[in-house]
């Protein structure tokens, strides 16, 4: 049953990677990067739900969410200043 969730997450991550690679402009790539990090966070939580020491693995997710927000905000400021 765990494989079903991880396969679906892989399909979603493939969609975000497609937008990250092929996105015609910089904001599209930022959308792909942000969504990809969200999918990775969800995948870590799903994997931690099955492992024995899940409550320790969960702590990494906290850092990943915060890094994702800082990255998106910094890239948004960069787009706003640089132009397209």
């Amino acid at each position, binding site marked *: 049953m765990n494989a079903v969730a991880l396969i*679906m997450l892989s399909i979603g991550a493939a969609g975000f990677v497609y937008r990250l690679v092929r996105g015609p402009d910089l904001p599209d790539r930022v*959308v*792909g990067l942000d969504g990809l990090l969200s999918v990775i966070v969800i995948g870590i939580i799903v994997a931690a739900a099955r492992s024995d020491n899940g409550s320790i693995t969960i702590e990494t997710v906290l850092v990943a*969410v915060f890094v994702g927000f800082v990255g998106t*905000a910094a*890239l*948004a400021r960069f787009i706003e200043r640089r132009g397209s």
Partner: protein
Amino acid sequence: MDTFAEVLLILGSALAMIGGIGVVRFGDLFSRMHAAAKAPTLALILVAIGAAIEIGTLLAATTLALVVMLQLLSSPVGAHALSRASRRQLTIPVDDVDELTRDERTDA
């Protein structure tokens, strides 16, 4: 209770997959941002509830609650900043009249 957590994990993963498909299939930037900002947030909430039931320790539950609160705070802010920045750079014609940029670019 175990099957309930399992259903929540699979439902959240399905929602993340739908977000990924939407990011591929939608036609312009703001539609893609709509798919990329909201679907993974609800997916994270569902998966976090499922994992908190599945792991069953207080430490995991509080950490997951903190993760969900942080995502709920940061995801709209990041999406808003990104859409605002790209809206000012791109010119997207809607019905010949671009209502959103009119007061910023011609009146100011």
